């Protein structure tokens, strides 16, 4: 156990340590400063922009930035939907996989376009190699880049003074993909291959077992997919069991590398915020707030799971699985290396909390955006308490900003609670629901948790599943598909508008009388606002699911 705890500590410490220079590098990339990788990557960036016909010099205000974001996502949605619907006639399909049926395709494409990667299909048997590469891997790069671009635009808005333009969406997204995600993915994929992860265009292997039986072993373009799945907080695995599958995550070393990849960009984004706003202390405060939420959750999860090997891989152990469960849910990643359905009730509550808050590091880009919303609420309350009308980084927070922050803040619980309530009432109003619907094998608090988790994961654009839920049904495919779409774009567009509003304002110089966003006491305020609002939004469902189950287990 001591060894496992050391491994957990080293993993977290290494992620934090490497996120600092990465954050500085990302700032240089997005602000157009020179970096050491320029000779290789800048020509590639120029090539992509030229092929796409982007005028790299054109600046966009928040509206046209948002329109470009939505339009490009809409085009990708249509194109990738067409591919998976026609994958049986498209090339690179050695295993002869059939076309995806429409409701499942709606869910799958909505899931991958929104960077959620909730999988109601089973990876290795549901998609051809062509679909894996040109739908899954393509979207895993581009949607991660979309989130990072939105975040960068928001940061420019915060830092700006009487600024109209927030940058150019296409340039930002291209830079994120070509100059950040790509150069990190390639070495990571090589590390994974060195540990035994396959990377091949050959079809499934056939083997004869010792007993003489014949076995089909799925394989494919795995290492590259796993690399971007982790780095871009995507989480959708090549195989159904995700990173619990020995090909996706063969050894403790690959496990370490993947855990690092899950956390490093979300963490680095915080440091990038510090560079953009020219306030390193602000980044430090935000990072500390996130750690002060993350570490207790990791601690609880490890303590709860110790000794509970059900659903976990022996090659990783309970502590590493608990760390993974928390890290993958706080960061909106959603890959798993153990079955969350088998976590103890309180251990399983931790991933849900991570997704309810959705701002502890969070998804690439969107995590910092979500945090911004809570910061604005904290600024408003704390600002009044010091006797001034509220201001953030010297900019007045007024009715328009509060409206936009409120919209973003309201949407998340709305999606989760309404979705779960609808599912519950469908279940409660169906005669003999266990056979008629086939969703839940064990109703009661645990079944409630499964349904709650599914909507939580969709709304958080996380994508992990509690499993145990029979989710490949029209109800779940359509409802979670809609939730994923709305929960992706509302919490991106509203903060973009908010950043646009703040960007246009003059920034007053800070004095001893103004609220310092980069002070410890303000950090504590943000932390308290997150804890209390999170509690108020989600305590009833937490009580009805994991807590009721846990108390029943204890008797």
């Amino acid at each position: 156990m001591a060894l496992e705890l050391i491994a957990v500590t080293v993993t977290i410490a290494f992620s934090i340590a490497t996120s600092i220079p990465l954050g500085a590098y990302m700032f240089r990339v997005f602000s157009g400063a020179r970096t050491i990788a320029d000779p290789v990557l800048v020509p590639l960036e120029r090539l992509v922009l030229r092929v796409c016909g982007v005028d790299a010099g054109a600046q966009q205000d928040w509206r046209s930035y948002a329109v470009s974001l939505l339009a490009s996502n809409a085009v990708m949605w249509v194109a990738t939907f067409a591919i998976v619907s026609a994958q049986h006639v498209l090339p690179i399909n050695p295993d002869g996989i059939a076309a995806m049926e429409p409701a499942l395709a709606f869910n799958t494409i909505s899931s991958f376009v929104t960077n959620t990667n909730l999988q109601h299909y089973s990876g290795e048997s549901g998609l051809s190699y062509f679909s894996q590469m040109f739908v899954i891997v393509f979207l895993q790069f581009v949607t991660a880049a979309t989130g990072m671009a939105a975040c960068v635009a928001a940061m420019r808005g915060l830092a700006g003074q009487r600024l109209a333009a927030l940058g150019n969406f296409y340039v930002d997204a291209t830079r994120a993909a070509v100059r950040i995600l790509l150069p990190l993915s390639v070495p990571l994929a090589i590390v994974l291959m060195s540990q035994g992860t396959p990377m091949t265009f050959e079809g499934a292997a056939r083997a004869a077992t010792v007993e003489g039986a014949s076995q089909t072993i799925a394989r494919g373009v795995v290492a590259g997919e796993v690399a971007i799945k982790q780095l871009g907080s995507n989480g959708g695995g090549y195989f159904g069991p995700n990173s619990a599958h020995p090909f996706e995550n063969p050894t403790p070393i690959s496990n370490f590398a993947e855990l690092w990849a899950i956390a490093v960009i979300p963490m680095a984004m915080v440091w990038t915020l510090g560079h953009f706003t020219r306030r390193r202390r602000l980044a430090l405060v935000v990072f500390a707030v996130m750690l002060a939420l993350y570490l207790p959750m990791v601690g609880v999860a490890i303590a709860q799971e110790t000794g509970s090997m059900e659903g976990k891989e022996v090659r990783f152990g309970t502590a590493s699985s608990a760390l993974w469960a928390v890290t993958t849910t706080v960061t909106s990643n959603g890959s798993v290396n153990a079955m969350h359905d088998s976590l103890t009730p309180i251990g399983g509550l931790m991933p849900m909390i991570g997704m309810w808050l959705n701002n502890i590091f969070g998804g690439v880009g969107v995590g910092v955006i979500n945090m911004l919303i809570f910061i604005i609420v904290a600024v408003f309350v704390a600002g009044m308490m010091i006797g001034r009308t509220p201001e953030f980084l010297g900019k007045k927070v007024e009715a328009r900003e509060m409206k936009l922050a409120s919209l973003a803040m309201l949407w998340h619980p709305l999606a989760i609670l309404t979705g779960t309530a609808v599912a519950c009432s469908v279940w409660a109003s169906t005669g003999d629901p266990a056979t008629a619907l086939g969703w839940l094998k064990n109703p009661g608090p645990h079944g409630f948790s499964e349904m709650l988790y599914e909507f939580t994961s969709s709304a958080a654009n996380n994508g992990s599943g509690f499993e145990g839920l029979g989710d490949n049904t029209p109800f779940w495919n359509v409802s979670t598909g809609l939730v994923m779409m709305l929960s992706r774009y509302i919490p991106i567009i509203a903060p973009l508008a908010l950043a646009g509003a703040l960007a246009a304002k003059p920034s007053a110089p800070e004095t001893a009388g103004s609220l310092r966003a980069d002070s410890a006491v303000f950090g504590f305020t943000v932390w308290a606002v997150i804890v209390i609002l999170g509690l108020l939004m989600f305590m009833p469902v937490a009580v009805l699911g994991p807590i009721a189950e846990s108390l029943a287990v204890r008797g």
Partner: protein
Amino acid sequence: MAERAQSVSIWSAGIVRPAMIASLTKLDPRQQIRNPVMFIVEAGSALTTAVFVQELISGTGRPAFTGQIVFWLWFTLIFANLAEAMAEGRGKAQAASLRRTKSDAMAFRIRDDQTETVPAAALRAGDMVRVEAGQVIPGDGEIIEGVASVDESAITGESAPVIRESGGDRSAVTGGTRVLSDWIVVRITTNPGETFLDRMIALVEGAERQKTPNEIALNILLAVLTLIFLLVVATLPPLAAYAGASLSIAVLISLLVCLMPTTIGALISSIGIAGMDRLVQYNVLAMSGRAVEAAGDVDTLLLDKTGTITLGNRHAAEFVPVAGVTRATLADAAQLASLADETPEGRSITVLAKEQFNIRTRTFASNEVTFVPFSASTRMSGVDLAGRRIRKGSFDAIKRLVESGGGMLSADLVASVERMARDGGTPLVVAENGRPLGVVHLKDIVKGGTRERFAHLRAMGIKTVMITGDNPLTAAAIAAEAGVDDYIAQATPEDKLKLIRDEQAAGRMVAMTGDGTNDAPALAQADVGVAMNTGTIAAKEAGNMIDLDSNPTKLIEIVAIGKQLLMTRGALTTFSIANDVAKYFAIIPAMFIVAFPQLRALNVMGLATPESAILSAVIFNAVIIIALIPLALRGVAYRPLGAAAILRRNLLVYGAGGVIVPFAGIKIIDVALVALGLA
């Protein structure tokens, strides 16, 4: 805020009784809808009442429990209305009594040396009136003759009379106030309908009080919190149905009302009204709530030196003789030269001479003494007495006098004069029969405690800028002594305007006081422009506040009141949200205890029964509103500290306190309910 005016107790019958009636009439949904949070409480109360009636008629359910919930829900609303009515009540009571005195006031108008009795409403600007003891002053104006003690309680709530006299900064009087002793002649300066009283009535009685920008933003936050809780409560019945539990409407509404930010929702308008009212108690009239909020945001204060930083006049501080002359000789000569000098400077010389050398006032027969008054051409004054020609004057004037008699000024005299000028003082040279005796050091006296006040302001992040007509040398010395951050010497109104624009361009908010017509552009440009009541009409119209006492020092209190208003709003918002944690722990286990008996582990307060738990939370939620009315009206404790220190303190008191207090409160109410057999 040392000179805080004594206020009318909010618990006096004159305020509480009409407020109680108003709290019922305000239940009208058409009025209630202006406050969305409380409107939802009203809708919930009505729904629960319908359920209660239905239960009574059909004999089902738990009418005893539902009935108590209904009772307390309505009381939540009534308490909220009471808070607003009491805040409005103080101003209304003042305005009503003032309007009474106004309607029957008669005035003695002086016209062509004749006095005629006319109704107050007939007076126009420019009219002269004589007001005698016991009479109400018929309109706003300026005393041109006489001195009187005036009872201004009708406007300010301050019962101690104040002295008003002609000339100087206390010459303004307000219509509707009462002369208690002596008599005065007042020149009316405003026409009926435009008086301070009329404006105040309009402000406190304005049925559609304008919401300030910060209030609007806060209302949005409260609305979204309300929506979130509405969502939480509305999704509970299907979740409960899945779990095999059923929830009654009374319980659901109880949870909703407890969670919604009713505390701040109920008190938000009271806080705003009370802020305006607090300014009125300081004899300051704010033209809008926006101005009060802006006062809290002020970064830079422009302060006039005279009257704000220094006492109005210079005082003699020391006698510095030239070589060969004793200080006593110099003091004696200076005292003689000042005997007939009625200026404050002259008087201060005689006082200093008496203090240091016990030289008393002497009387002379009029034939042996000739007083020489100050004249602009000689720039000297003095006395001729038994062959002694004593003169005092500026250095240049005495120099001319001495040199015209063929004398010379000694080097030590020149050195003393230069030293005093450098220190911000004014040297006054005394000569006898053309021979210089020495120098009297006249000093600007910085008001006591000024340095500390400015240090507090600096800690609060507010920059002080002294405005003075003095030369740069003198200004620098006084600025250093008073501890201001910056100064403008030989300031013109254009300088003030430029400074304000520069500060605003850098994103700072500026407050200033002014009284002259040439101050009007700067007053209009400043974010907070306080016009002196004694000032010109142009100045008063340009500013967004008027100080009836015409006391420029008050700018500092105005900033404090603005900050206090915002702090009160923030503190009660925090308190309101923090309260919800305990309410969850009371209500959630109670709701689901039947379906999940294991949830009794969450009943951390050990509340007796599910019914008593829910009822206790609802009662606490209602009672806390009443308990916080005084705080809302008085404002939270205010200390001039830096932002971090204030935030730490308020987070501890209203954040941590807001989490802990309801745990204790709900438990106490639960114990009481059980003891009374109500649950």
